[in-house]
């Protein structure tokens, strides 16, 4: 579908177009880039339809690694193969990395000012809230999960207890709970 469907549509012109586009996306994304990627690439640039976006996002999300970075990689690869993937990846990370290091450097110079430490403490608390909110928001998707709501909730609670309360290493928790979840899901989804 890719080659024929994308021909009449807007698409990135070159590797540098990809790099610059993803750099600009990354620089607009404070506290999360996904919403910006969706808005810019789907609604404004129209490189992808919403359906295609959701499809790619699902894969980006189940793969290990940062979701938005995975998504950039996959979009880049769609148009220019491996070089495209690398260009999108570089765009997403290079300039933001420089900025974040500069910020840290500035922070280190002023670290002994009580106000700054307090500000970081406050932002840290909010950041913890943002991550929690992302999880809470996604809870609604469990309603339609083929596992069924009781099994989904049991798995979620077991995972939360193991990681947050018991502080077991993820290395053991993820494969074991994931294995159980996969077996149950495999039996419930239609062949």
């Amino acid at each position, binding site marked *: 579908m890719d080659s024929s469907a994308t021909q009449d549509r807007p698409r990135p012109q070159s590797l540098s177009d990809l790099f610059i586009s993803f750099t600009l996306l990354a620089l607009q994304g404070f506290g999360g880039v996904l919403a910006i990627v969706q808005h810019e690439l789907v609604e404004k640039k129209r490189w992808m339809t919403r359906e295609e976006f959701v499809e790619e996002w699902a894969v980006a999300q189940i793969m290990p690694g940062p979701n938005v970075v995975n998504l950039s990689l996959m979009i880049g690869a769609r148009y220019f193969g491996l070089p495209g993937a690398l260009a999108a990846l570089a765009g997403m990370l290079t300039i933001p990395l420089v900025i974040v290091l500069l910020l840290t450097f500035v922070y280190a110079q002023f670290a002994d000012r009580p106000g700054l430490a307090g500000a970081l403490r406050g932002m840290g*608390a909010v950041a913890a809230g943002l991550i929690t909110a992302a999880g809470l928001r996604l809870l609604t998707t469990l309603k339609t999960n083929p596992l069924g709501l009781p099994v989904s909730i049991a798995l979620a609670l077991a995972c939360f207890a193991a990681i947050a309360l018991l502080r077991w290493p993820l290395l053991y928790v993820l494969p074991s709970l994931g294995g159980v979840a996969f077996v149950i899901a495999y039996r419930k989804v239609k062949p």
Partner: protein
Amino acid sequence: MSTTPLLSMHASDWLQLFLQYLSLSLLSIGGAISTAPEMHRYLVEETRWLTESQFTASIAIAQAAPGPNILFVALMGWHVGINTSSIAMGLFGVLVTMVGIMLPSTTLTYLAAQWGHRNRNLRGVRAFKQGMAPIVIALLVATGWVLTSVHNDAAKDWPLWLLTAASALVIWRTRLHLLWMLGAGAVLGWFGFV
């Protein structure tokens, strides 16, 4: 900020750090932030290469700055590096942790995206995708919990817990831009309210 330990790290320690991030990369389903509790256990509790405040600052700065949040990993490497000596080692630390966290997951994603696209109706693909959902979601909530519970002095830290709960609630329930919440947290913290 609390006192920074001066570390001496051997090549084998750097290798350990690299291998740790390589394996975390493969476990970071749902985003690298879901492995933050594991990073905390390893870097702060087990090896003591990072202080508590450096760990928290890494996440907070990366969240506050533009760009993907994965850059908190770069900042952890940066802090480990400068704890040993210099800015040059800080940059080396960035390289070690970022290549470690990125290489396996991006390689795998690239290969799997091609494969998964061709086989998206396969029973196993759908079972994996949907079976992992509750676990991935719970990991996000657990991460918020772990970040909050490092501040465990109830008498002193309750305003902080309140702020975390309030921001989770506001972001969950409204469409307010995240920047406003982060800004509010910074202001409250600057004036010592939390």
